[in-house]
């Protein structure tokens, strides 16, 4: 196997290489995104072995279907994390026991590990800060849906709210979060370009 240095390539270029079954490109993508992916899967599944399954299956999906990625549509990292999240919620929905436990214990914010990069720590702080600015009910709906893996119908039932209320909380919460993150992104971009 040829060893090539992929460190200088963008995530999108790496996915293009994975589409040609370039193993080094897959390894580089895993090194960039695997930690975030595993953290996400673990938060949803609360089980190391299942979280590993979700990440492995998503990366194999990437290996087998990278040719279908459209770089104009989404960042490669977003695409991969979407695959991981989908696998994780599909797995958690098969685990009834775990799920009933999870409702009593709302997912807590994690501070991550010391090995994480400064950038990831910064990004995590930024998103968690934006989440804290949401109204409690919107934040609860987003967190239980995204990190808890609950469907909107399950949330309606378990929170004792009409389905319409849950839908509206998720939509408003996600829209508001988008605004909060956009504002900050613009401010950051301005700071960067003006420095």
């Amino acid at each position: 196997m040829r060893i090539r240095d992929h460190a200088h390539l963008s995530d999108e270029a790496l996915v293009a290489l994975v589409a040609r079954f370039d193993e080094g490109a897959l390894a580089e993508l895993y090194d960039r995104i695997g930690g975030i992916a595993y953290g996400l899967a673990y938060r949803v599944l609360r089980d190391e072995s299942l979280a590993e399954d979700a990440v492995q299956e998503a990366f194999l999906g990437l290996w087998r279907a990278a040719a279908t990625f459209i770089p104009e549509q989404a960042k490669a990292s977003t695409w991969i994390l979407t695959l991981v999240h989908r696998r994780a919620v599909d797995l958690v929905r098969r685990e009834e026991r775990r799920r009933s436990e999870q409702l009593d214990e709302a997912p807590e914010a994690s501070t991550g590990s010391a090995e994480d990069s400064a950038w990831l720590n910064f990004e995590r702080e930024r998103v968690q800060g934006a989440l804290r600015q949401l109204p409690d009910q919107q934040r609860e709906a987003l967190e239980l849906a995204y990190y808890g893996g609950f469907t909107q119908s399950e949330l309606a039932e378990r929170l004792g709210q009409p389905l319409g209320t849950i839908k509206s909380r998720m939509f408003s919460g996600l829209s508001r979060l988008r605004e909060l993150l956009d504002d900050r992104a613009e401010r950051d971009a301005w700071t960067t370009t003006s420095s």
Partner: protein
Amino acid sequence: MDDHLELTAAYALDALEPQERERYEYHLATCERCREELASFWTVSGALAHAAGGPPPAPALRERILAQARSERPNVVPLRPRWALPAAASVAAVAAMFALGLGLWGSSLSRELDRERSARAGAGEALAIVSDPGAHTVAFRGAEGHIVVSDAGKAAVVLSGLEPAPEGKTYELWVVENGVFRPAGLFEGSDARLVQVLSRPVPANAKVAVTLEEEGGVDAPTGPPLFETI
């Protein structure tokens, strides 16, 4: 409130029941506004992913993933994809986006296929096949692509760089066993990239072939395959 916009948020959070998910994906194939909204919401859910925290993965996971990938590297490497090493996304490209969503649905959602006999394959099913740990891949000869066959024999075709079918024509998939061609779905090839679930299983000794046929498809191929698996 537009119900579809609320569904878009729920979809981006993976909070829909399987049937709702599938219905929404059909809607998405025809609604540009929802595709744009979804792209934007996906960026937000991607941000939530970064904030998940959690412990680091065991080092062995990396090796396991790479070992399995290596073990199923198709033995024919596709030609250089025409979209390799993309330039920065243009506004026009972004506006034209999401016909394939994140690439995991596409012509499988076309109305042609909706009418097609047994095919009922959304992104979820395609994703389940390509993510199946027991699956294997077989390359096509004569086209950039391969099939992924799950442990249970369910198969998805992954193709890139195929020209759209000419007006009035359609590509047709076939499962070929002992020289017998059985129809396995239609696709238009109107998108540069395609993932489509075959409407019938692929047994271990079978091949998958593609022909060009009259719109609507046929029960037996009218000519030799354009390309087939090795």
